[in-house]
C-alpha cells in the first residue's frame, strides 16, 4: 500500500504532464527550439547536419560562439546571403544566442567524405597548406588556428570537417572579395588574401576528403595559442 503510493502519484503526475502536453500541441506549436527553427531546417537539415545543396553549410556541433557571431553578421548584413539576412532582421540577440546554442548542441554524425574530383598532386598541395602552410608566401597552416584535428576551438573558431569543397571555396572567395567579414582583426581575411585560386581549390578539396575524427567536438578555449590575433576569438 505505502509502496504503491509513490508509484500512483508518479502515474498521475505523468498523466497530467502528458495531458498538458497533448492540450498544448492541439492548439499551440511545441514550446521547443526545434519548432522555432523550422524556418532554417529545409536548408540546414533537421539537426543542422546540412542538406544535399553543396552551398548550404552544416551547423551542428560548431562552437556556439562562432554560430552566434555568424547570426549577428547576417542580421546586420555584414555577411551577405539575402534569404538569411531577411529572416534574421528583427530577431533580438538573446534569441540568436539560443538558436546558436541549439545547433551547437546537436551532434548528428559527420557525412562520409566525398570522393574527390581533383588530382593527387592538387590534394597533396592542399594538405601541405592545411597542415604546414607556406611561410614564404605568409600563409599560416590552417591547423594552427582550426586545431590539429581541424575540429576548431571554443568559443569562436569553427572546425573545418564535414564541409563540402564548394562551400569552403565560396567562403574563402567571399573573404577575398569582402562579401564576408568577421570581427576585427579579421584574421581569416588576412589568410584568404594570401591564397591564390589554385590554393583555394586545393585546400578546399583536401578538407572535404578528411574522414570524421573519433571526437569531432571543438577543443576548449585556450588549448593552443593562435599564430596571430582574431577578433572572433577573444584571448
Amino acid at each position, binding site marked *: 500500500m505505502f509502496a504503491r503510493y509513490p508509484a500512483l502519484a508518479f502515474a498521475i503526475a505523468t498523466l497530467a504532464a502528458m495531458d498538458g502536453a497533448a492540450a498544448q500541441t492541439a492548439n499551440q506549436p511545441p514550446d521547443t527550439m526545434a519548432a522555432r527553427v523550422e*524556418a532554417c531546417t529545409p536548408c540546414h537539415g533537421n539537426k543542422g547536419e546540412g542538406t544535399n545543396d553543396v552551398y548550404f553549410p552544416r551547423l551542428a556541433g560548431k562552437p556556439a560562439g562562432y554560430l552566434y557571431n555568424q547570426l549577428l553578421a547576417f542580421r*546586420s548584413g555584414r555577411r551577405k546571403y539575402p534569404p538569411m539576412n*531577411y529572416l534574421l532582421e528583427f530577431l533580438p540577440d538573446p534569441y540568436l544566442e539560443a538558436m546558436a546554442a541549439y545547433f551547437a548542441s546537436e551532434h548528428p554524425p559527420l557525412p562520409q567524405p566525398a570522393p574527390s574530383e581533383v588530382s593527387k598532386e592538387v590534394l597533396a598541395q592542399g594538405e601541405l597548406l592545411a597542415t604546414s602552410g607556406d611561410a614564404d608566401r605568409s600563409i599560416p597552416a590552417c591547423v594552427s588556428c582550426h586545431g590539429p584535428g581541424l575540429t576548431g576551438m571554443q568559443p569562436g573558431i569553427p572546425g573545418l570537417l564535414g564541409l563540402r569543397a564548394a562551400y569552403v571555396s565560396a567562403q574563402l572567395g567571399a573573404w577575398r572579395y569582402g562579401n564576408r567579414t568577421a570581427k576585427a582583426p579579421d584574421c581569416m581575411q588576412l589568410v584568404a588574401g594570401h591564397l591564390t585560386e589554385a590554393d583555394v581549390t586545393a585546400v578546399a578539396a583536401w578538407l572535404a576528403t578528411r574522414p570524421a575524427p573519433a571526437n569531432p567536438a571543438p577543443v576548449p578555449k585556450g588549448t593552443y595559442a593562435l599564430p596571430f590575433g582574431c577578433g572572433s576569438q577573444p584571448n
Partner: protein
Amino acid sequence: MGSKLSITLLALAALTTAAQAQDKNSDVVARGEYLARAGDCTACHTAAEGHLFAGGRAMPTPFGTLYTSNITPDPATGIGKWSADDFYKTMHSGRFPDGGLIYPAMPFASYTKVTRADSDAIFAYLRSIPPVIQKNKPHELRFPYDNRQLILGWRTLYFREGEFKPDPAKSAEWNRGAYLVEGLGHCSMCHSPINALGGTSQSDAFKGGLIPMQNWYAPSLTSNREAGLGDWSIKDITDLLQTGVSMRGVVYGPMAEVVHNSLQYLDDADTRAMAVYLKGISEPSPPPPPSSTLPTTESSLLISLGKSVYDKSCASCHGTQGEGKPPHWPPLANNQSIEMQSAVNPIRMVLNGGYPPGTKGNPMPYGMPPFAGLLSDNEVAAVVSYIRTAWGNRGTPVSAREANELRSAPLH
C-alpha cells in the same frame, strides 16, 4: 553666523531647484525618447551597425538614393547648433533652419501634426544622446530630382501643414489614437496610394499602396477587405501592434520593422488608443464579387495542384483547414491579409518565409521557411491561389508570371 546660515540655506535652496529642474529635464528627455520611438526615427536615422541617430542609411527611391542625416548633437556634422525652433520648423514645416526644402522621404507630412511640446521633448532627448562625428553623405538623385525646387510641386499637391486638431465629437482615447497614427506613427506614409517615397506612377500600376522599390503592398487601413480592423477585437489589435502576432494574423516585411523599432515600445494606454482609432476608421464594405483574370479551367487546375502543395508543405503549421495554431502559426482561413486584391504579400510570404519581429511580448517568435528554392513558379502560384480561395476565403487566383516577377524583389 546668521549670514552664514542664510548662505547655506540659500545654497541648499539653489541646489534643490537645480535638482528639481534636472528632474524635470530628465522627465522631458524620457518623454522625448518615448516619442522618438513612436516616430520610429531610428528606422531611418540609424544605419545597420552604425551609431544611434548618426544617419547614413541609404533609402532607395525610384528617383535615386537618399541618405539620411546625422541627427546627433554634434555641432559640425549633426544638429548640435540647432535651436528648438529650428527643429520644430523641420518637423512642422519640412524646412531646414535656413528655409531650404526637405525631401518628403523625411515624413514631415505626418510629423506636422505633432504638438510643439512633443517636438521640444524629442529635441531635448536628441540633445541628450552622445554626439557622433559623421558627415552626411550627399544624396544620389538623378536629374532633375536632384533639384530641391521640385519639392515645391510635391508640397502643393500633398502637404497640408498644421498641428493635429482633436475632433470634439470623439472620445479622448480616439483622439489620442488619431494623434499617434496620423502624426508620429506616420502610418499613412506606407498605407496610402500616394506614396511620399515615390509618387504615384508606380503605385498606379498595382493600385493601392504598393511600396515602391520594396515591392510590398501596404494595405488600406480603412477597408475591411484589406487591413481595416472593423471586425477585429481591441485585444487582437493591441496584440498585433505590441507583440507582432495575434489570433487573427501576424506582421511581416516592412510592418515587422515598424513593430520591432516602434510600436512594441508604446505603453498600454497609447496602444489601446491606436487600436480604438484604427477600429473606428474602418469602413465596412461588402465583399466584391470574385473576379479573376485567369480562365476558369486554368484556375481550377492551379487550385487542385495548390491543394497538394499545401497539404505537403504548409498544413503541418497552418492546419489542414487553414486554422493554424494562432498566434504563433497564423490562421490562413478568414485572414484578410491574404484575400486582398493585391496578391503581392502572400506570394512574397511563400517565396521568402519570415519571422515576426522579436518583441518584449514575443521574444522568441516561430518562423516560416522560404519556399523560393523549393517550389517552382507554378507551384507557388498554385498554393497561393489555393489559400486565397479555400475555406471560404474570397481572394482570386494568381498566375505563375506574378510569382516569377516577385522572385527578384529586394529582401532588404
